[in-house]
């Protein structure tokens, strides 16, 4: 760990120039464009702004984006935990291979996963053909959107939970079992408390990614207004209608959600670190 306290005067060169370059680049590529968005939306008159962001179509899109993202992040919390647990605790043939392909959704372009998922889950697809007779339509419904959002959020949960499971002290588990605790009790009182901050961080990261996701969703969603239209897609529609102000207003809504998510993630990480310190 890095020590905090008095430091020797730094002899390394390049502070001014690297800080200057970093700040300049950051401002030019990230901050200036983002402020253009906020100012564009701020330039609208208030009533029109409210009318745009609370129109029935916008509200329906938030409901879908949020609902599907929440559901996907929850599914990932359950299956992501199972996956992380399997990878950390069990040894089975192909474990290293599975561990490596967990990151696939990070590396796979979203358009590719979008058309591939649609092909698999369409009524005549490999998996869709078995679900259709059961009355479950996946492609072009909110279920398909949830499937796509689950795929892109999966590595976030697995990769944050994995190190946390490695932290669980096995001697503590063994001690508890020696004292007569059942497996479920150990799970509830030892494993879950240790893993909880990571699990919630992973959940939030997956949710944050899912809310803004575009590429993998639009192919499988069908994009029916009021039904299967996510908020990012609605922004694209407004842009195509050259209604820049409305697009900017919806963009500001999305951006605010991003900021709230960032804050939540940072708070969760601070909380997790504190808990780890206490437990040692």
């Amino acid at each position, binding site marked *: 760990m890095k020590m905090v306290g008095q430091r020797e005067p730094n002899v390394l060169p390049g502070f001014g120039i690297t*800080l200057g370059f970093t700040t300049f680049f950051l401002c030019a590529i990230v901050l200036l464009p983002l402020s253009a968005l906020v100012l564009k939306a701020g330039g609208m008159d208030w009533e029109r702004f409210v009318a745009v962001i609370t129109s029935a179509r916008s509200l329906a899109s938030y409901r879908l984006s949020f609902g599907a993202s929440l559901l996907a992040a929850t599914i990932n919390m359950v299956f992501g935990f199972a996956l992380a647990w399997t990878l950390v605790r069990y040894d089975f043939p192909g474990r290293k291979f599975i561990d490596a392909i967990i990151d696939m959704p990070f590396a796979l372009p979203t358009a590719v996963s979008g058309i591939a998922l649609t092909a698999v889950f369409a009524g005549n697809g490999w998996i869709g053909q078995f679900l259709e007779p059961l009355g479950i339509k996946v492609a072009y419904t909110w279920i398909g959107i949830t499937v796509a959002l689950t795929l892109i959020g999966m590595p976030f949960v697995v990769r944050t939970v994995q190190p946390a499971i490695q932290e669980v002290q096995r001697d503590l588990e063994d001690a508890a079992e020696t004292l007569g605790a059942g497996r479920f009790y150990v799970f509830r009182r030892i494993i879950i408390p240790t893993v909880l901050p990571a699990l919630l961080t992973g959940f939030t990261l997956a949710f944050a990614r899912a809310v803004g996701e575009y590429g993998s969703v639009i192919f499988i969603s069908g994009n029916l207004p009021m039904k299967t239209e996510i908020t990012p897609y609605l922004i694209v529609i407004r842009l195509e209608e050259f209604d820049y102000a409305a697009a900017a207003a919806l963009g500001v809504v999305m951006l605010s959600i991003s900021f709230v998510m960032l804050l939540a993630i940072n708070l969760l990480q601070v909380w997790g670190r504190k808990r780890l310190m206490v437990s040692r």
Partner: protein
Amino acid sequence: MAGPATSEAIAAEIASRPGHTNRRSTLVRWMLIGVSLTFLGALLAAPLFAVFVMALEKGWSAYFSSFADPDTRAAIRLTLTTAAVVVPLNTIFGITAAWCIAKFEFRGKSMLITLIDLPLAVSPVVSGLVYVLLFGANGWFGAWLQEHEISIVYALPGIILATMFVTFPYVARELIPLMQQLGNDEEEAAITLGAGGWFTFFRVTLPRIRWGLVYGVILCNARAMGEFGAVSVVSGNIRGLTTTMPLHIEILYNEYNYVGAFAVASLLSMLAVVTLIIKTLVERSGYRRR
């Protein structure tokens, strides 16, 4: 607890001891492995496999002839061009940012780190939208750009800018924690012994951060070549001119040219596989993410 009386009871007691696998824990183990693999199989393996099956549906010759299409070639070229500009720029930025953040103490540092990570939290569509608002016909600089006949949006510069935005943090966030952990001692020793700044960087710092750098660069590259949402908003989708590979997939797919769409998708899937292989090799070499 009554003492074990029979040998069966003794065996049962031993089996229930911690660390001892009994039938129930074996069952739980195989159930968890089964559930995990089914989940991954349906969500990840099946779609990935489907890309190649769909691409080869009409045979190898149809597969290869889809790359003869001039628009497809133009899309591949555009994607390569974009990555060739964006990845080096973001690499230089990442190294510079990591140097000033990891090597020096200053006020507002954690704020700076948060701002560098910001693009990761922003929706790709919003990342594209901001450039349209800035450089589009009705944007801040729109009139001025039109006067000077410079096109940024719906042209290559816009695609490059939007791609830079979304891949902005990749190298920096890999290098910052790595360089913070390595500390300043070796660089300070080099400088004190009279080495110049560049010499110190190339001979002392770079060899120690190289795996982290490779890691950040390949992930940056994968995202740069595969970005869809942000580029889609700024590109205007002019076929053969401003369509990158992911956008070209969309066009072909919407025209029901599935072999063509999945053929381009198969190239990007191979890129993803290669990225993961390099990433795994880097991790094998002892590099650990922080």
